[in-house]
C-alpha cells in the first residue's frame, strides 16, 4: 500500500459529526469571551492612560510648587 493510498483511507474514515448544538454553544461562549476580552482591554487601556496622565500632572504640580518654594525662599 502506498503512502497516498494509506492517507486516502485515513481521510475516508467516517467523521465524528460536530453537532449544530455543540457548534453553536461553543461559538456563543467563545465569542462572548472574545468580546469580553476586547472590552476589558479597552477599559484597561483607558484606565492606564488616565493613570499615566494623572501621575504626570501630579508630578508637574509638585515640581511647580517645589520650584516656587525654592524661588521664594
Amino acid at each position: 500500500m502506498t503512502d497516498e493510498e494509506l492517507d486516502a483511507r485515513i481521510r475516508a474514515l467516517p467523521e465524528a459529526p460536530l453537532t449544530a448544538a455543540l457548534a453553536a454553544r461553543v461559538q456563543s461562549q467563545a465569542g462572548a469571551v472574545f468580546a469580553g476580552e476586547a472590552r476589558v482591554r479597552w477599559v484597561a487601556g483607558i484606565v492606564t492612560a488616565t493613570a499615566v496622565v494623572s501621575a504626570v500632572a501630579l508630578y508637574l504640580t509638585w515640581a511647580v510648587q517645589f520650584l516656587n518654594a525654592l524661588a521664594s525662599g
Partner: protein
Amino acid sequence: MGEDAAPSVLLERLRAGDAAAFRAVYEQHGAPIFRFLTRLCGRRELAEDLFQETWMRFARHARTLRPDTEPRAWLYTVARNLVRSHARWALVDAAGVAALASWWYLEAPSAAPHEAAVGADAGRRLERALGRLPIAGREVLLLVAAEGLAVDEAARVLGITPEAARQRLHRARAELARCLPKEDET
C-alpha cells in the same frame, strides 16, 4: 463575510477585536479541529470538552497573537497540547479506542447493508490500527494525512523540526501499514 479572507487579514482583524473575524475563523476551522480531536483522543465526550477549551483559549488570546501567527496552526497546537496534557490520557489511549468503535459507525451515513458492513469493518480495522499507534505517530499522521497540513506546518504544530516530522510520519505510515494486514486477519 470574512470566510474567504487571507489568514493574515483575518489575524489583523482578530487582533483589532473584530467579532466577525472571530466567527469567520470558527466557521473555517471549527469542524476540522473537532474532527482532529475526536480522532486523536478517541472519545467524543472528551473531544467535546477539549474542543470547547481550545476555542476558549483562542478567544482569550486572539487579540494578543503575534502578527506572524497562523490561526490554523495555533488552534491545532492548542488542541494537540490539550490532548497531551489531559489527566485522563491513559484512559484515552486504551479504553477510549474501544469506546470509539462502539459509537463511531453508528452515526455514519449508511449505504447498502452489505457494503456498509464491509466498509465499517475496514474502517474499524483502520481506526483500531490508528489507535494502537504511539501518540507521536498518530498525531503527525492525522495532521498530514487527515487534515491536509503540510509537513512543515505539522512540524510547527508539534514543536519539532520538519525533518523530525518527516521521519515521524514515515515511521507512523510504516507502522500503520504493518498493523493493517494483521488486523485484517482477525
